[in-house]
């Protein structure tokens, strides 16, 4: 097992080295900063971006948009998921909404969001429409996948309904959510940034990316990509830390 993990780490480092190697190679072959910037120019752009007085404002604004949007999605997914599991009417009402969100092209909904909403809120809504269906289905699955025999056991032993909800249903929902938490948080961040690029709020990673594109500063775009990757990594690390502290998977 340990050998396997070490091998895994080695492979991960190797793949990163290959990507950097290919970057160096491609930038040398292409030899055009606008089409494919070098590592050096990207690094310089990165320092410029970080040194900018608005940098923290931009990062905090985008993170807030992303987190608020995600929490709204999570809250609504939990409420509607629970209601759908107890009421066939709500389950059937939710079905066409989810089908609509999954079959209508995302870009069409984004355009509508840009028309209807303020530039501050449109990115949040765009993140919401991508992440809400995932979270809703996860919550519903968490409730429906509870073993009915365990519920019968609880009923036979006269265990109170609140205890059943607290000790069986909520852990089952959390367990299922923990499996999609990191990925849905990542998707949400990406969608919020895409929304920002289109709606152009004052302080936003997406707006900054768009600005770099307008100036044909590709190394700036690359630098922002690196910053987004770092934020994703930090998100992942925090989620893992929370999971470990809550000991969600200790029984596995």
């Amino acid at each position, binding site marked *: 097992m340990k050998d396997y993990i070490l091998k895994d780490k080695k492979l991960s480092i190797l793949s990163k080295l290959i990507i950097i190697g290919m970057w160096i190679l491609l930038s040398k072959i292409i030899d055009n900063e606008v089409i494919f910037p070098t590592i050096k120019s990207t690094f310089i752009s990165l320092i410029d971006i970080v040194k900018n007085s608005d940098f923290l404002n931009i990062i905090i604004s985008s993170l807030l948009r992303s987190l608020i949007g995600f929490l709204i999605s999570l809250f609504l997914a939990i409420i509607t998921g629970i209601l759908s599991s107890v009421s066939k009417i709500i389950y059937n009402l939710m079905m066409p909404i989810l089908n609509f969100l999954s079959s209508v092209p995302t870009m069409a909904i984004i355009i509508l969001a840009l028309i209807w909403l303020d530039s501050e809120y449109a990115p949040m809504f765009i993140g919401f429409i991508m992440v809400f269906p995932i979270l809703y289905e996860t919550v519903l699955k968490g409730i429906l996948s509870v073993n009915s025999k365990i519920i019968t056991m609880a*009923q036979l032993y006269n265990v109170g309904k609140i*205890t059943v909800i607290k000790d069986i249903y909520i852990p089952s929902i959390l367990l299922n959510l923990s499996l999609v938490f990191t990925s849905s948080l990542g998707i949400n961040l990406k969608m919020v940034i895409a929304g920002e690029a289109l709606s152009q709020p004052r302080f936003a990673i997406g707006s900054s990316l768009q600005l770099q594109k307008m100036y044909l500063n590709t190394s700036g775009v690359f630098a922002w990509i690196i910053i987004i990757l770092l934020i994703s990594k930090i998100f992942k690390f925090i989620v893992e830390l929370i999971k470990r502290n809550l000991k969600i998977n200790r*029984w596995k």
Partner: protein
Amino acid sequence: MKKYQVKDIIKHYNSLKVLEDVSIEFDEYKTTCILGPSGCGKTTLLNIIAGIIDKDSGQITGFKGKDMSFVFQEDRLIEWKNVKDNISFVLKHKMDKSQIETTINRYLKLVNLEEYKYYYPKNLSGGMRQRISILRAFAHPSSILIMDEPFKSLDINSKQIVTEFFKKLMIMQNRTCILVTHEIEEALNLGDKIVILSERPARVKKVIENTFISSKSKADKIIIRRQIENELIGNLSKCNPSVLLQKSHR
């Protein structure tokens, strides 16, 4: 001796008659084994006694308002709870935290399983999981213990260990036990009284006082086994004559 009783129980599932005038008396602090072929309606009878399903007609005496404990064919442990929390799950509405802790410790000590207190079900063998399920039933304060084929899914070795575990607990913490099984050996080893049910619709074919339990005499065991086999072969012959032929050739 206080009696628990079911009388003239009839149950249909749509047009299918499952139980036909089933009457059984369960002696207090004794184990009554309900023995019958698979699918004859034994579990339906248990569910009626437990109050999960309704009977069509008949009387049930002595069970109403009584606390009951249950052991199922599967252990029904909650995977994300350790042994202590699995037992405490059924005790929460009965006692406060400190009492729960004391009860669990006492029972784990009673059967020398203290070391498993913080184990999760996934780290326990099938036999150990079922032992915890039985311990949970005993730790739950109740006067009646209902067991539905609790040893069915275990391999031979585990079955013997878990059976001994159950017998030990029954001696230490006596309960009125209703045990459903389709295995003659299990009924012989555990039942003070053995009630033999017929094929569906289930009727009580015979009630045997299992003298082997107190006498431990091999002769008693052989005699009672023969009585049971005669009744069950009678059952089987109705549905499959070849089984009867094979049995009588032995």
